């Protein structure tokens, strides 16, 4: 299928949780790590997200995405470890480099929040069909235009990549060097990117016309071909998530 998708088609309990419930989990799990800024609590939430990924049989799929965040995490540790304003207690020194307990604790908190954020979004994206999620959001009142943008980007990027391949071949056949050292590649960049962008703009205008004549901007109430799927435990899980959010807010206010 000519489309970008991170969805992993597996049979698991998490795959059978309603898309909007998973979206609520993303929001709640991120929010509570800010409402209760305790390292142990954030660690617990992060481990919960990790467990859910494992139950959803998509843990391995999240690893490349986590790997991408390593640079961010390292920079957090260095910046906070060295320069956190409350740095007092020296933890250890290597030459002129000194790490402080306060800074590293805060860096650990930020790191866990980042990891939890990635993993909770991972739960949503890896175990949910995006068209189903977007359709559910439109049914809940999200603008169909935003829904369209979300879905079309995922399909059009591979198409643009294919166009780029065709244009690269065309330019090569006319003698342009596209491979080699950095200078050669930089010189090849504009003759390649300009036709791709112009082609995409032209297609975008035509696609806008196609949408227009198929009533995309009509003010009529939309109907849907796909029926909403029936999911089990939706109310129970959503109630638990709302309760967790309320309890954490109450705890924060009272403590």
């Amino acid at each position, binding site marked *: 299928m000519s*489309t970008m998708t991170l969805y992993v088609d597996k049979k698991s309990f998490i795959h059978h949780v309603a898309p909007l419930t998973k979206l609520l989990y993303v929001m709640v799990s991120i929010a509570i790590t800010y409402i209760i800024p305790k390292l142990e609590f954030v660690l617990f939430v992060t481990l919960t997200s990790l467990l859910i990924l494992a139950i959803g049989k998509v843990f391995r799929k999240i690893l490349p995405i986590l790997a991408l965040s390593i640079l961010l995490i390292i920079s957090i540790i260095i910046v906070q470890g060295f320069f956190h304003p409350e740095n007092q207690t020296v933890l250890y020194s290597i030459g002129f480099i000194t790490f402080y307990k306060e800074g590293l604790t805060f860096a650990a908190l930020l790191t866990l929040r980042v990891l939890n954020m990635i993993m909770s979004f991972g739960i949503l994206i890896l175990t949910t069909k995006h068209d189903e999620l977007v359709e559910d959001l439109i049914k809940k009142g999200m603008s169909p235009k935003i829904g369209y943008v979300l879905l079309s980007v995922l*399909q059009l990027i591979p198409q643009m990549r294919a166009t780029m391949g065709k244009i690269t071949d065309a330019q090569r056949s006319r003698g342009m060097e596209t491979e080699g050292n950095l200078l050669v590649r930089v010189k090849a960049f504009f003759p390649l990117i300009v036709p791709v962008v112009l082609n995409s703009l032209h297609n975008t205008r035509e696609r806008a016309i196609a949408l227009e004549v198929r*009533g995309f901007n009509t003010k009529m109430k939309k109907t849907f071909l796909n029926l909403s799927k029936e999911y089990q435990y939706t109310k129970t899980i959503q109630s638990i998530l709302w309760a967790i959010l309320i309890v954490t807010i109450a705890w924060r206010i009272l403590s």
Partner: protein
Amino acid sequence: MSIIQVEGLKYKYPDTDQLALDDISFEVKQGEFIGLIGRNTAGKSTLCFALSGLVPHFFNGGYGGKVFVNGLEVRQHEVGDIAAHVGLVFENPFSQMTASKYTVFEEIAFGLENMGVERNEMITRMDESLDLLDITSIKDKHPFDLSGGQMQRVAIASVIAMKPKILILDEPTSQLDPQGSEEVFKVVENLTKEGITIIMAEHKIDKLAEYADKVALIDHGKLIDFDTPAKVFSRDDLPDYGITAPTATRIGKALGIKDSKTDLFPVTIKAISREIGDKL
């Protein structure tokens, strides 16, 4: 009764001085197949846009005159409202795919969902369209995994499912192979039998000569002629408008053979074969 009425239509695109459509008037009866011919930039596509409401609503610009489609004055109604009466299919099949659906079946449903068609009715119409365009076998495929000809048929099916009274096709076969082009013409001919009015801008003159009831010749935004294919293609000044007469007409002119029914030069291979056969 006329399903399309164009009265003194003038239009110029924003930031241009020249009229893209210059005082065009004509009428079309329900179920007629009208071919639009003319050189590139003659104004064929602009006329197609004007009949579907994209001119002036989508393109803006200077607009004069009146266009009525199925009783609606185009200028007074939104494109979305006109879409229920007029379908538009254009040249590039790729850019007509919405890029938001994952199967051909869902792709065809897109317009119906927007028009608020009830689900059971939607499925019935989609099945009819798939059947009419003979694409039921690819209904579960991803739209971008299809060939150009298949995509164009999906584009037509998507529009047909919306049950328009008028179908406008702007060079729908320009990116198709001969087989694909023939299929599109056959489909369109079947649609006229269902009572759908067809307006088709096309460079494949031989095909238009075979299928069209009337031909509109356009040049520099002006309607030069609007008559039967036999009358329009018998004109001696066709090359002045960038048009080459159909093969049958050129043979007829070269051999001095006229269609005994119309006393004009034949426009189809069938007609000239009949005349030659009679002479032999």
